[in-house]
């Protein structure tokens, strides 16, 4: 990515999330709260730094995008109102808007479901994994 591309993406993430990564004081409460911490390669308390340092490539390529449960615990508890959950969601949307969403293909779905799957699960997963 060129410098301009990075800057553009940083701005986009800030805009989509409506969050200010500079407010982060690196307390780690988000990571202390996150139910998916162990699944993530980039940890919630690192999201802000990745954006501030312009390491967008690593962030959008990270598995964390797909591991966040959107349980909003970090958003609720963040003492600085940085809301890491919104930052990672913004990064995820950035990816999906560009790639059109290929993390969940319609063809895959029949394989994945059983008789009990509620509609809520399908629509939620669709919203999360795809544009």
């Amino acid at each position, binding site marked *: 990515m060129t410098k301009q591309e990075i800057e553009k993406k940083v701005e986009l993430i800030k805009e989509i999330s409506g969050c200010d990564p500079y407010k982060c004081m690196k307390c780690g409460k988000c990571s202390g709260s996150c139910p998916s911490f162990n699944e993530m390669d980039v940890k919630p308390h690192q999201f802000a730094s990745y954006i501030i340092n312009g390491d967008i490539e690593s962030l959008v390529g990270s598995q964390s995008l797909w591991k966040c449960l959107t349980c909003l615990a970090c958003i609720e508890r963040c003492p600085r109102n940085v809301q890491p959950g919104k930052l990672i969601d913004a990064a995820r949307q950035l990816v999906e808007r560009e790639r059109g969403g290929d993390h969940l293909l319609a063809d895959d779905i029949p394989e994945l479901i059983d008789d009990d799957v509620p*509609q809520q699960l399908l629509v939620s997963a669709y919203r999360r994994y795809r544009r």
Partner: protein
Amino acid sequence: MKYSYYPGCTLKNKAADLDLYARKCAEILGFELEEINEWQCCGGVYPLGSDEIATKLSSVRALNDAKEHGQDLVTLCSACHHVLKRVNDDMKNVSDISDRANNYLALDEPYRGETKVLHFLEVLRDVIGFDELAKKVTNPLTGKKIGAYYGCLVLRPGKILEFDDPENPKIMEDFIRALGAEPVVFPYRNECCGAYTSLKEGGISQERTKLIFDSSNGFGADMLITACPLCMYNLNKSEADSKIPVYYFTELLAEALGAKEGNS
């Protein structure tokens, strides 16, 4: 008292119980749930991106329908409750989203978040009152030790949903008490069940639900209640040794009000 009612897609299908018992109980408790016309799916998740409009429109239509009927809007499903309340907050307080949504929808009169969105439990607490509810209980669930599993969507973000204290809620415990049962408070009641990841990666929700069952069972609960079909699904799929039965809160309400007989 008449409310506009937004059942949501799952309640028409896999979570039909949640819906059916709610309607019956409402009748007993003296209020009516009037299903709004041609509602569309809320999307299940609130789009966190502040620039998302299209994904919020179906909720705005439902909210506006309730406004046109001059009624508060009641929901049952945690996800619908979450999405509707947050979109409503956007329409009220985020002028950018509100303006763009209104421009697109071109309603007769712009919608600015006038509708009040209530979870069914909020109707019980704030309109009926748990004391009044307790008086209407004919079949108290005496002796049952029930854990209230809230999950995430019904509580957070606390500032916008204003449902209960997101870190230390008590509405469902009070509800359980009103039904004559004993609430069991356990710390995992507001921790995530794994949510939508169960579709592709069952592992996370297996881990999460085990923690939830270990905790609730450990503190002595015989059963859990929930308001969320997805939580229900994930909990039911759990392979934890500590697993206990899970019910929709409306089912227990119907039982306590003596309205359960004669159904399925």
